[in-house]
């Protein structure tokens, strides 16, 4: 992407005493994209987000948001950033509408159009007291407050926790719509399908260190495709060890191939034999994710 990043992270490090929260993290988030920030619990996603928003002091590194320093200019930055924390509370005895109006006024915004738009979309009852809401409805309050000031960048930390699957779908559609309208969204998640479904790019973090930053489609391409063929008779697997084939597995008459490129050549080679059955499968993020995290188990 040629555009100037909305959020530019360089060498971001956060230590808690001797314990490293995140280490030497570099990341760019570009305008209008939905960027997924993927990692298991404790990988450093929330620490990264909170360090970017000056809720945590950074040990080293720089974060620029809209060209401003995240810590020196944090107040100015927050005029243009919506944020949904991963874990939050509100005033339990206040009605949702009063809470949201108060928070909106704190953003310096008086237009409530977006507040009503998002709360209607999520079927949020704004006349209830916060303490009366279920976990899912509390999460909706958090989502509404993150989007209601209609800021250019929205940072979401595990946004769909507590939402039912139908509501999740509504939320994904909403994210895509917001992105199309030019909003930049940076969302952390440990749900692979969610990232795969809505994000343009993904950054994977493990033990506080960034592993990979890629477009979802290009990651899938890099992972290759899995070609499974069942032959009538036994074959010589050495014939499939050709350029573009990453892995060959033989089980009797069945052969599994991981094809990164040259699919055309591979299919031609396969077609030299009598084929009983054949399937071609694209890798999803689940498998990709497991590839990165398998190393944690030493396997």
């Amino acid at each position: 992407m040629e555009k100037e990043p909305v959020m530019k992270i360089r060498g971001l490090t956060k230590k808690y005493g001797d314990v490293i929260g995140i280490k030497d993290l570099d990341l760019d988030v570009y305008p209008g994209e939905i960027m997924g920030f993927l990692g298991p619990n404790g990988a450093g996603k929330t620490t990264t987000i909170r360090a970017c928003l000056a809720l945590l002091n950074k040990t080293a590194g720089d974060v620029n948001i809209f060209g401003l320093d995240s810590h020196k200019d944090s107040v100015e930055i927050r005029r243009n950033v919506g944020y949904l924390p991963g874990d939050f509370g509100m005033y339990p005895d206040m009605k949702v509408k009063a809470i949201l109006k108060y928070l909106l006024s704190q953003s310096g915004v008086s237009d409530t159009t977006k507040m009503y738009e998002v709360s209607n979309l999520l079927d949020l009852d704004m006349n209830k007291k916060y303490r009366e809401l279920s976990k899912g409805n509390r999460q909706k309050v958090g989502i509404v407050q993150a989007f209601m000031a209609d800021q250019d960048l929205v940072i979401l930390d595990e946004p769909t926790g507590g939402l039912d699957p139908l509501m999740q779908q509504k939320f994904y559609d909403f994210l895509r719509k917001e992105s199309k309208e030019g909003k930049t969204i940076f969302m952390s998640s440990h749900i692979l399908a969610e990232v795969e479904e809505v994000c343009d790019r993904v950054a994977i973090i493990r033990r506080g260190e960034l592993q990979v930053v890629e477009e979802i489609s290009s990651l899938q391409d890099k992972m290759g495709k899995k070609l499974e063929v069942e032959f009538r008779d036994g074959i010589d697997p050495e014939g499939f060890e050709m350029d573009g084939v990453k892995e060959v597995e033989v089980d009797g008459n069945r052969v599994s191939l991981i094809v990164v490129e040259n699919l055309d050549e591979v299919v031609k080679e396969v077609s030299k034999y009598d084929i009983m059955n054949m399937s071609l499968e694209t890798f999803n993020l689940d498998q990709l994710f497991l590839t990165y995290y398998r190393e944690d188990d030493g396997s």
Partner: protein
Amino acid sequence: MIGGSFLFELRNKWKGLTIFLVVALIVAGGMVQLFPVVVDAMEEDVEELEGEDKVRVKVENGNVTIDWDSVENATHYRILEDNVSHMATYREVDKVEEENRTTFEYPIEEERYFAVIAVLEDVEKEVFVGMGSTVERKSPMEELMEAPYFRAFTAGRPDVDFRYIEGFLSVELYSWWFLLVGLYLAYISVNGITDDYEERRLDILFSNPISRRRFLTEKFLVLVFYAFVLLSVSAVVMIGSLYSVGELQNFGVWTAFASMLGSWPLFLVVIAFSILLAVKFKRSRTAVGLSLMIVLMMYALHIAGNMVDAIEWVKSFTILTYWDYNSVLLDGVFKIEHFLGLLLVGVLVFLAALLTFEKEDIPA
């Protein structure tokens, strides 16, 4: 919106603040109402002992000498002793043959009552002669003002006179006003901050364009403003109450305001220090415990310093010493240097709280 959190805090806390305001007003107004009743009750004439004109008791050089009017036909006299005038637990300490005077060792320092009984031989009966005491009899008011614990509540001023409204309020209201208001302000100051930590509201609050400095300053100002209103309204209620008991002319409107509002910077220090503890410890239990303990400790040190001359120096460690209400009540002098000094301390402590809050991570 500038001041938005200020108004929001006030709106959110109004119930608790109003309830305490009412309590404070009842105390400030009520104490004045008690003045005539208490003074009347305590200045009653000294109750006479039965037959005290017939029995004379004198303590000298570790001996007690009792002499009494003689009774006709008395063969001997019995002398009874007790520590209460109704002789509920008396013991016989002497038996005197015909004489009407006796002297015996008296190592006891406390007040003792002696009753003299005449025993008549011919009619085989006893006659109560009279009763005397080792100490001079005083009114309850005199006894109270001479009691060692009374000194504890006079803030080191021996001229506090309970019979006058200034002295009465000095002891009965001002001496513990710090404790009443200080404990409450310490409690709400800490919880006003730690609730935001414990209920995990800070992430969302700071996703808005509000600096930590403004956030904390507005919280501080709400409490400082509340303390000012509380003290001003208390002074007004006190003035009304003084008027109703006919003491306003003696006391004066200026004295009411100056004595009450003189404590305002004292409470500003309490609020600032409680906020400092809250941002440092972030947990209600620890911060509330510490702030209440410090308020109680200051009060205890002040009282102890008033009571015991040998440890009077401990009072210099308590900020309470710098709210000299007696100077206003008894001398008509408002110590502006103390007022400004406390104000400065309060502001400095709050700046320390701000620095701490700005420097530290907000826990997730």
